[in-house]
């Protein structure tokens, strides 16, 4: 495989991975997209915590998600 085709394959894989990571939902006949790894999504998730234990659990979930993406 040439370096250019290997580069294209790597790029395609990266694009597919990024697309697979996105969260999509259909609300009122409209697609709503979000990236769970974005700072906005992370902050929104942490804001849901009512206490330290919940925050700690959510942080663990966020890091697990980020490491697997």
């Amino acid at each position, binding site marked *: 495989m040439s370096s250019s085709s290997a580069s294209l394959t790597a790029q395609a894989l990266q694009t597919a991975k990024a*697309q697979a990571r*996105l969260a*999509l939902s259909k609300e009122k006949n409209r*697609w709503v*997209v979000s990236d769970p790894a974005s700072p*906005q999504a992370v902050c929104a998730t942490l804001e849901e915590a009512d206490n330290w234990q919940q925050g700690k659990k959510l942080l663990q979930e966020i890091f697990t998600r980020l490491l697997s993406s």
Partner: protein
Amino acid sequence: MQSKMIAYDPLTGEIRGVCLTPPQVMAWQAQGLAATDGPEEAGLDTHRVVGGQAVAKAVVELTPDKSEVTADGQDQAVVAVTVLGEEPPDSLEVGVGSQSESVALVGGVGALSPISAVTPCTVLVAVADSITYRCEPVSITAVEDVQL
């Protein structure tokens, strides 16, 4: 007109290889592929095989009204879908990120449900069946909603 040998998947009609020089037909057959003659312009991206004959893929155009939206959950982009050629289908499966939607077509023309985003991201829109249709994917990028 010069022809070339085409290797294709006999189940789907997807072209897997083309060859202008004497082809390795046996090697292709060993991989479960079938072989046929095709026109010079036949290619993996532009043609498929139907009934043993190489035919051009139907062209689909995806036209977004805008390629960038604000990631506020309100701003949205609408992607128009047009299937060119005679006898377009009544519907077409269009991929949105990792999901898909069946878009109803009238006279080959339709529209995907509007796309909005709540965080910055880029979502790809493409035809799901890339064997039957030829289509350039489009991307919709959501940018940060900056409120000063």
